[in-house]
């Protein structure tokens, strides 16, 4: 569904046609594991679900770049074993669709660099593409020139659940 000129929604993902770029927000890898640690025995479906939906949505496409809009993983402080494993696996899958994966830092991503370094990826605060600025959205960089000049702001962070009925 095209929601703006050259900007499409594909299932849970955003596609920027002009830049042949896929945008993925707030994957929160390790959310269920974090709940487990609080003593909630929630079974783990999330990671598998994410992969299935991703593969179904993009099939055999190739992208110039894939932007992760922050909060790739859930835990604030440490990186848990599952997070390590699943995040790397997730990045590897994305790298199969593009050569250029860009990580944007979210509020849950206090420590993302060690994982990013493993695959030689950069962690950025925002990405500017023409009139579009992409950032996580937990802080507004009001004084930033790129931000002020942009016409379209794409953020993650707020993830309301909307059901089409």
């Amino acid at each position: 569904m095209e929601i703006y000129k050259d900007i499409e929604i594909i299932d849970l993902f955003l596609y920027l046609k002009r830049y042949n770029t896929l945008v993925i927000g707030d994957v929160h890898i390790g959310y269920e594991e974090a709940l487990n640690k609080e003593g909630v025995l929630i079974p783990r479906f999330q990671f598998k679900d994410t992969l299935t939906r991703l593969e179904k949505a993009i099939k055999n496409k190739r992208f110039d770049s894939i932007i992760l809009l922050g909060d790739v993983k859930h835990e604030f402080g440490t990186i848990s074993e599952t997070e390590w494993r699943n995040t790397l696996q997730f990045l590897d899958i994305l790298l199969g669709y593009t050569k250029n994966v860009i990580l944007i830092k979210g509020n849950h991503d206090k420590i993302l660099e060690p994982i990013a370094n493993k695959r030689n990826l950069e962690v950025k605060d925002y990405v500017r593409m023409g009139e579009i600025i992409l950032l996580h959205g937990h802080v507004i960089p009001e004084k930033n020139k790129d931000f002020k000049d942009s016409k379209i702001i794409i953020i993650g962070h707020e993830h309301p659940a909307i059901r089409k009925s």
Partner: protein
Amino acid sequence: MISYKTKEDKEEEIFALLNPIVRDWFKQKFKTFSPPQKFAITEIHARQNVLVSASTGTGKTLCGFLAILNELIDSSEKGILQDKIYCVYISPLKALNSDIAINLQIPLKEMEELAKKKFGIRVSVRTGDTTQKERQEMLKNPPHILITTPESLSLLLTSPKFKENLKNVDWCIIDEAHSLAENKRGVQLSLALERLQNLSPGMARIGLSATIAPLDEVAQFIVGTNRDCKLVNVPLLKQLDLKVLSPTSNLIEEPFGLMHHKMYELLDSLIQNHKTTLIFTNTRSATERVVHYLKEKFPKKYTENIGAHHGSLSKEHRFDIEKRMREGKMKVIVSSTSLELGIDIGYIDLVVLLGSPKSVARFLQRQGRSGHKLHDTIKGRVIVLDRDDLIECAVMAKNALEHKIDRIHIPKNCLDVLAQEIYGMANQQIWEEKELFALVKSSYCYRDLEKKDFNEVLNYLDGSYTSLEDRHVYAKIWRKDGKIGKKGKLSRVIYMTNIGTIPDETAVIVKIKDRKIGYIEEAFLERLHRGDIFVLGGNVYEFKFARGMVAQVEPSPGRPPTVPAWFSEMLPLSFDLAEDIGKFRGLIEQKFENNRKENEIIDFISEYLYTNKQTSTAIYNYLKEQYDYCKHIPNNKKILIEQFKDERGNKKIIFHTMFGRRVNDCLSRAVAFAVSRLEHKDVEIGINDNGFYISSSKPINALRALEALKSKELRKVLEYTIERTEVFKRRFRHCAIRSLMILKVYKGRHKRVGRQQVSSMILISALKRISNDFSILKEARREVLEDLMDIDHTTEIIKEIETGKIKLKAIFTEIPSPLSFNLVLQGHLDILKIEDKVEFLKRMHNEVLAKINLKK
């Protein structure tokens, strides 16, 4: 086999069993045995299982303990007293436990003085409040009599060291059995008792209960499946002096101000003619109101000598009131439910109930607070203010006088409690699965447990519902070669800190977007559906949705509420009593149909309900008005379906189903479902004890909807209709917590209720993906339909409709018939001033009368 013991033992026989010291002490103190003692002491002495059902003040507790004290003293005298626990005593109230300990120590001391020596008999209390030092002491020197609560018993059984002390117990006393049998605490206890029996195979069980029914079922609950039990049912010894009073002979035409005034005058004269009066109201707010008005109307009479006692007041305040009562300083105490149980409150010579207590057992329990000595007269008055209440209370008093007690519902096959106890058992030792299944099934509450469900619970506990690689996170037990055992270092700590069946509760914050409006109780939120209208702080709101402990609403001024504010606090009418009210209505309808004379019918009412002429006439007038108006009095064999247009022009259909709220809850949901399927219309529902209504802006074929219900499909339909409701979501949380799928305490941190609720919502959708029949989902549905609502009796009723035993009759009325008034008004009560309510009723009444006269 469960058998009644009908012959009491001879006094000499009982005395012959007693050690001379005990015998002399008893003779000095009491002279003779009380009736329960005459029946039960020899049985307890012989280590037989017994259930004693008798009202308060009949020497029940001593009845349970006398044979045991006798054994201990006798052994001590002979020098053969062992260092072991002879008796485990369990009561649901921590507060009661310390009283019991004191009440045992006093006679022991008196007997020691009599014998001029020490017996060395130890009595100890073990609850959550017991200090570490006391625990250590108990472990080294086990008490001869251990006093504890159901939860602490489960914990002790799990303790590797202490359980050694539970291996040779002779007796287990279960006190206040009536307050345990009805809920999941009792279910947990029934399993703990099996665990205890497993360690002490020779143990006899002694149940002590207030008046309760059905006795043989409660006996099975106490002793377990396939064990013998002697039933001792002591009829009420006290004379019953019960009367239903109304402040005026005409409950419908009297102006409100006058009726209010007359009611307080009646109350005052009752109080002034007695020494100490205890008044019960049905809600906490009514309790405060009564105290306020009595003080305001009679400022000289009621000052320091009047007080309120209910659950929302501080402990200090309640203790102070109780103390002043015992000291005889109070003239009148007003309470809601907090004084129903056995707290010692001294001498009361009159109990007044304002409004119906909704069940015969509770009626007797409340009335039984008067005349505390054995052969005193129980003096009770029920004051009623409306015509439905009048009939309800008159039938209730009849049943009380005839000792017809309504049956309680014992929850069965609760999979959440089962999961918790199996976890406890795994922490106790390694078990053969077969042996474990047999043990569980010997509890009455799990008698019919299917192997499949048992396995489901084990599959949950061993984590096999998750994928192999993650399983170590989820497994609470290990299973191998038909055996199970505990898993994880924290296992015992988790069990100890999370045990119990009573859910955490907290107030729900009501908000419009981010603006806080106020608070409601969670039990009230449970009743709300999207679109329901309710009143908070004098304003009207529409309920949108809830998340965690926040309810989102929108202002909705001027619309009549669909759920009345008192709804969650008011107890539902018992099914048996509702049936009897229906039966009475049926008898009167028959007499009208046979054109019996007024005098004859009034005499019949007086004879049948034991009411005086004034009350009988009031009942006659009410039912006569109904009959003259529409020629039908709905009863237990006839459901009247009455359709009319309300003031907003909506079609409103009243279903006169006189079966109590728990059944009407099921029926109304099923009918609304049928309407939505047959006619594709959404309807608004309202229920009370006497029936329910559905309303819609478009015409509905209500008769067809009710006829379309099939008893065989009822469970499926109801499971579907509750799936998205708040009540299911809340109860699921309770079940998830009980089965330890969500730990409320973990690694030293206590999870807030809001957080518990949010977690449980995520859990629901995850579990549904595994299986819609996952044990905990299944249990939450069972709890809602069987324990909170009453699907069993609803099924019976639909069967009777199918076979034609219950007739359906649909009519159209221009203004609602007299028996509909309360249902029609129910929503309006929160926004109408009480004066306006009475005016409204009167106006409808006059319109009905005008119609009747027109027909003549």
